[in-house]
């Protein structure tokens, strides 16, 4: 079944998928879609739809430094999609590995890993991000490290709970009896059967990570300038938001729409998973 075929089984999934798809397209084809260079200064603080002194039109206006807001949003999608994707993937690699080990072996492995995860989770997430980024510096790679550190424990807990449940199933017992290796059982028998809830979590977590990158940008701890970054764009424009609302409205819409799209997609996928093969509202 195609991706579109799956999504069509749920209204929310279809809408969410469409919104996410638009931003994915922006990320993939940013250089083709963006009307101007996102880093170049043209004329500062042009209102949406306005013309620069040399007759160039800027549909969403320009920012304080005269850069085209539409082009920065389109290129910003690439920033969010690439780095939110990488950060989520990295968090999943760590969370999955630790969760599978803890849930499968239990005992001291579970005790130690759960203690570490609970310790990290006891910190407020935002404080954790700020402490990590301030300590190691703001860069794309460090944002991936921070998101991995802060998100992996939550993924660990989900995977661990699913693994403990699946570990007691007959098909796992059969695999053990057949003498399959532990890693094979974890990756081939347990993981595919846990994938339903995890796919939903991936969608939600991508949204959280996109928001995190935005929040870090807003706090001045995001990607270094001049990288187009939606949160950084809001931070740049917030002091002048009353006089020039377009500086913050469009990046806010971008972040909100991506978040909404990912949430709808997650809800829809949950519906589809709960309805089983061929079911759903759609």
């Amino acid at each position, binding site marked *: 079944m195609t991706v579109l075929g799956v999504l069509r089984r749920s209204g929310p999934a279809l809408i969410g998928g469409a919104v996410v798809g638009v931003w994915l397209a922006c990320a993939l084809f940013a250089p083709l879609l963006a009307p101007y260079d996102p880093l170049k200064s043209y004329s500062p603080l042009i209102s949406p739809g306005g013309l620069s002194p040399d007759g160039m039109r800027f549909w969403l206006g320009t920012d304080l430094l005269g850069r085209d807001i539409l082009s920065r949003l389109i290129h910003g999608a690439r920033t969010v999609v690439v780095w939110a994707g990488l950060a989520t993937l990295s968090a999943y690699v760590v969370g999955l590995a630790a969760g599978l080990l803890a849930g499968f072996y239990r005992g001291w492995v579970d005790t130690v890993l759960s203690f570490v995860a609970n310790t990290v989770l006891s910190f407020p997430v935002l404080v954790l991000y700020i402490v990590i980024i301030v300590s190691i510096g703001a860069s794309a790679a460090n944002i991936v490290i921070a998101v991995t550190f802060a998100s992996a424990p939550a993924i660990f807990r989900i995977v661990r709970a699913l693994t403990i449940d699946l570990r007691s199933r007959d098909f796992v017992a059969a695999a053990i009896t057949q003498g399959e290796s532990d890693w094979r059982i974890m990756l081939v028998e347990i993981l595919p059967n846990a994938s339903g809830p995890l796919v939903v979590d991936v969608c939600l977590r991508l949204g959280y990570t996109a928001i995190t990158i935005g929040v870090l940008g807003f706090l001045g701890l995001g990607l270094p*300038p001049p990288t187009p970054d939606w949160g950084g764009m809001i*931070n740049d424009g917030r*002091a002048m938001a009353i006089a020039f609302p377009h500086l913050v409205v469009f990046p806010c819409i971008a972040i909100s729409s991506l978040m909404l799209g990912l949430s709808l997609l997650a809800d829809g996928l949950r519906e589809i998973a709960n309805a089983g093969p061929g079911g759903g509202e759609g």
Partner: protein
Amino acid sequence: MSGLKLGRLRSMLGGALHPAVRPLAEQATRGEIGRREFLRTAAFLGVTAASAKAFIGDLGLVGEAAAQGAPKQGGTLRFACSVMEMKDPALVTWAEPSNLYRNSLEFLAEVDADNVTQPYLAEGWKPSDDLKTWTFKLRPGVKWSNGDDFTVEDVEFNFKRWQAPDSKSPNKTSFAMVTKFEKLSDLEFRLTLDRAVLAIPEMLYAYTCPILHRKFDEMGSDWIKNPIGTGPFQMTEYKVSSIAKFKRRDGYWGKPAFLDEIQYIDLGTDIAAHVAALAAGQVDVLYRVTIAEIELVEKLPNVRLLRGKAAQTVVMRMQVDQKPFDDIRVRQAVCLAADNQKMLELAYRNRGVVGENHHVAPFQPEYFKLPPLKRDVAKAKALLAEAGYKDGIDLELVVGNTQGKWEQDASQVLQQALAEAGIRLKLNVMPAAQYWPIWDKVPFGVTFWAHRPLAVMTLDLAYRSGASWNESHFSDKNFDAALDKAMGIVNPRERSQAMEQVEKILQDSCVIVQPFWADKFAAVSAKVNNHRPHPADYFRMDRVWMT
């Protein structure tokens, strides 16, 4: 210059004129120096502001701006300002607390909003020809708020305190050149210095130099508990991070203040919240408005945006002993590719004066106008190739945004400009708190420099070989000698001539990219009159009134 006018001036002063006054007055007559420079230098030389103003009135120079309406007595003014912890006013490290005690404590001299030095608790001073001896005459009839007379003993107490071996005051370093304090009478004293210093009166208006009562230490060294002062207001309440109140004091030596009371209200650090409070009528004056809020403030009804010139700037400075900046061709390429005008236009919305990479402002008295800087990207590329970077070069600029995001904005414009010459500039932006510990250690960094009345004060601190804040590690004997020469000249025109070499050496050495001199902004309710932005944020409130 007629002998009659000089004679009149001499009679005003009641004594002999400093030898530099005559040529100075002649230059003012010919229009070679401005009114402001004449007033400033006349003040250096012991001519009171009133006498000097009367004198230049005779010269037919431009007079004072007419007062706007008759001042009104009374009212309570609410000032949005941090109320920081303070015990010893000589040890404050921010201008904000000084603006609170400034209502009660006074200084020997004042540098006013026009950057002109005026007599204050000292009614005059006179340097020796070699600028190594300064004689001060104190104002008679000044009384402390506890009824004691203000005398030389008070000043002597403060100097001894600043210079004590266990002193923690920065004044200990600032006045290290003062080798002797001599009491000549109850109202006269003399300072002997071990080197010529031009700016003693300006230095005495630093916010660590308020004159405290001679028994300050005996009374517990806590000014908040014993707020004795000579100033026009009396402190009545002081709650850290909350509010401080000052009431008008009877028996003040000068003209009584117009306001009945001033309340300083601590609104936190978010200036957007301050602007909102002003718009809502919760406060009447904002301490400071940054470039980020000015468009908003301009749109608010019943609010006035105030703007003033100040010798405050940011510099993108390169450490000349660190690679690759130890090669002057790399520094030259950076300076040639930078577009200072564009940085001013975009990062500071053209509200300032373009910088010339020598850290002397056109409105500082010793400024010498050099030929305008020309941007030359092709030459920058050629210099880089010559230095072995024909494929361009990667540089990192550390930005702390210590004064606001405009530092980062200017850096981004620099980044675009340098890219044209093949310089790939990476911006390492970090929070101010993280930046301060390394501000003078990074090879290429953005530093904010606050206003100083005289450019030589900054140059002496930042570019002289081995100077304490020499963040660029620049060291040039010719520069030091040229600066010494300029610092020993009283006459502003002659000093300005001497500054040509100082400015040229610094500019040619390409130590800094100095995008612009940033204007200062403040905002007041429309009912507040006669409050002006001060270049160093030193606000005297006794001449402010409300309608």
